[in-house]
């Protein structure tokens, strides 16, 4: 029983980690209607920034979020302005897909060029110490990640529901043309949203950096899992992505123990395929206007 509880706890902690990566991805998809294949590389860039800042200035990696999140906001906003915006009206879908695939390839290999294939260990500053919750051992850093993910989801929901800008963002997502008629600057909204989505993963990267060694390819692993969480929770839904991430975290931990640690990914991706094929709107998804991206 202790082992089971420990596995469940590990799964939830892992879920928190996936959630903080997935939230930005689903936000960008829900509003801009673009699947950002470079999202994992955004995470990787954030983790390297966190590593460089915390080792260079000898500060706690969490403090670097103050610089990393704004930096990622700029990266995201520039991506939208320079790469996605010129392609928004493209007739063929493949153009947008290859645009972010190209960005992903370029960023990953740039990191390889600069940092080499070796891993970079961000100093832990105590977040890898364990705490006992009853019978269960957990890393403090994992608890912080989960807490941050919850705070981020609630914060984003409040922002989207209660603020003027948030309402403008939702209106643009619902109907771009009508939003423009209401005087909303849709191009600005898309740039802002892409920036916020990237800043979310920037925040996440400062929290993840002390827990995971940073490498140029770290993003690929996380982004593929994040896609699974996002689709599971219903594309574009922020709370959906959060709960999807918890489910996938649990599946990952349980299948790793009961089926075999080398087959965890096979289980996760099989679930992903089943959801995509059988229920593309996701487990918690509400129907949304995807007319131009799905059948």
């Amino acid at each position, binding site marked *: 029983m202790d082992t089971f509880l420990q596995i469940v706890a590990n799964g939830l902690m892992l879920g928190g980690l996936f959630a903080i990566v997935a939230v930005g991805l689903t936000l960008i998809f829900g509003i801009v209607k673009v699947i950002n294949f470079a999202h994992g590389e955004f995470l990787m860039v954030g983790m390297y920034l966190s590593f460089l800042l915390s080792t260079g200035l000898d500060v706690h990696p969490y403090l670097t979020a103050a610089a990393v999140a704004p930096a990622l906001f700029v990266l995201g906003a520039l991506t939208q302005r320079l790469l996605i915006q010129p392609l928004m009206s493209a007739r063929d879908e493949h153009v947008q897909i290859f645009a972010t695939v190209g960005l992903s390839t370029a960023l990953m290999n740039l990191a390889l060029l600069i940092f080499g294939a070796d891993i970079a260990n961000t100093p832990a500053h105590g977040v890898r110490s364990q705490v006992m919750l009853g019978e269960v051992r957990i890393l403090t850093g994992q608890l912080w990640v989960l807490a941050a993910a919850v705070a981020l989801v609630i914060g984003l929901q409040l922002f989207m529901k209660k603020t003027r800008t948030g309402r403008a963002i939702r209106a643009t997502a619902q109907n771009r043309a009508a939003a423009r008629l209401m005087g909303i600057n849709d191009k600005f909204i898309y740039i802002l949203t892409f920036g916020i989505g990237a800043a979310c993963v920037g925040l996440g990267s400062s929290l993840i950096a002390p827990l995971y060694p940073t490498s140029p390819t770290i993003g690929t692993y996380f982004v593929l899992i994040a896609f699974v969480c996002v689709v599971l929770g219903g594309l574009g839904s922020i709370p959906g992505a959060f709960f999807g991430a918890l489910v996938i975290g649990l599946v990952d931990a349980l299948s790793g123990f009961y089926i*075999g640690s080398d087959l965890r990914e096979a289980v996760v991706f099989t679930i992903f395929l089943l959801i995509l094929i059988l229920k593309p709107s996701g487990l918690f998804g509400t129907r949304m206007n995807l007319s131009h991206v799905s059948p």
Partner: protein
Amino acid sequence: MTRASDTPMTAHRLGLIAVAVLLAGLVAVPVAVGDQFVYHIFITICIFAALSTAWNIVGGYAGQLSLGHAIFYGIGGYAGVILVNLGISPWIGMFAGAAVAVVAAIVVSWPCFRLHGPFFALATIAFLEVFRVLALHFRELTGGATGLMIPLKIGWEWMVFRERLPALLIAFGMLLVCLAVAWAIRSHRLGFYLVATRERESAAKAAGVGTVKVRLMAVAVSAALSAMVGTFHAMYLTFIEPESMFSLQFSIQIAMFALIGGIGTVWGPLLGAMLLVPITEFARGALGSEAIGLHGFVYGVVLMLVVLFLPNGIMGLVHRFTAAPGKTVGEQAAPVAAAPRSAEPREAGREVMRVEGLQKHFGGLHVTNDVGFTLREGEILGVIGPNGAGKTTVFNMLSGFLKPDEGKVSVLSPSGEWQQPVTPGDFASIGVGRTFQIVQPFAAMTVEENIMVGAFHRHPHVGDAREAARETAHRMGLGPYLNAEASSLTIGGLKRLEVARVMAMEPRILLLDEVMAGINQTDVRRAVDLMLSIRDTGVSIIAIEHVMQAVMSLSDRVIVINSGQIIAQGDPHDVVRDAHVIEAYLGKDFTHA
């Protein structure tokens, strides 16, 4: 040369000569230079060009963006190496690999066809990950993470050589096979069907294209070719492991070459690989481990630049310079060669379609309520009714696009039996053709190619279909636009193209959904003549129409639908005086007007 027809013969020939020179160079250059490293670069070019050409059949022609094509390459590689270790020649192993890859391709693709664009891409990535994880897991078969070596058996029989020349010849041969297959598909019916399905799936279905079948064929061919190249590449590398055989980056590269060269064109993938592979290999050879990541960085940047500034790739650039100076498409349309209308009202023939008790609900909305009627041979049946009355829903049930909740649609087959078709394909093959209210041209195809998609229904050979399409185009007054891109037509032209495509199918029953909406007076008159001339050839027509002038002068009989029910039917002049009809259109106050 996908658009051979719209470039002058000389440009076409120049293109073929250029391709021949490029291909000859792939063998001649390394032989002339004689350097091992140059050989290696050219072998790699051939392998990537072949893989990219195979990918293009699915990713380009069919428009299914696979980012998991390494699945098939990896299956081919593993099949080859595993069999070689059992003492079986890779020449046999590559066919075994191809067979497994075809099965895998069908299993992977079939459920994914309902996914579009980025979702299809994500699903293929997920399948690739599953294959990679399974290859790592089943160590007894694949050697797991440690990988598999091939035994050092040298000779043609084992595809392993001391010199590089034989390897180059095999790689070059495989490239030629892939190019030949890609060219053959693109220039035959299958290629037209694939592009049509990519551009407008529903219109392709209405034209009788088995959209799932043609895509499965494309995927199967593409997978088999990829697997065969994979077998050879594994022999060439002498060592394989799951991380390199089932690699996402590798899959992306394959797709990238096609995109950069020109997605959906026959020669684009070849050009893309010839341009980019040398960059990789030189970076690797000249800079060594210093430059790890450099080629990938260049690839990524080139990909973004191409997408932004050259979305049709190198082939797009080539076309811009070689294409004949664009004929300015004249504004005035050619007259429709309509037969003069016979003065006598024709006698309606036997029944050809029976519609009985159709019911359809969308959620709580009762959109079709007990609709039933019959259609006779050589009759024009007008269907009118206010907006939202459910006319198009009825049409969708008469052509297999919607399944009625209750009721049935029976069609008299050419052999004289009553049949009940179910799918759009069934309706098309029994001779029911339809148009769409919102025009659905295959935008990336020329007018002629659009009509050919319909003509293939009766004429499986390209030459015959082209001839039939031209004939139909002239009848529809589209003769001057044969080589224009469909997307360049005016709305009136598009409506006529819509009719032309279905006419080329030589249907016995024609369903026309508002072909006159939004077109000008001249075009309306022309369309009326056109429909009468079609009717006079013995075709039965059901036409949804709002343009009353057209309905009155065309229809032998009229059905009025309101709120999903037939509220009146009969002679057009009687129906418009019917009180229910006036009420439906104008409200109760006007019933005595």
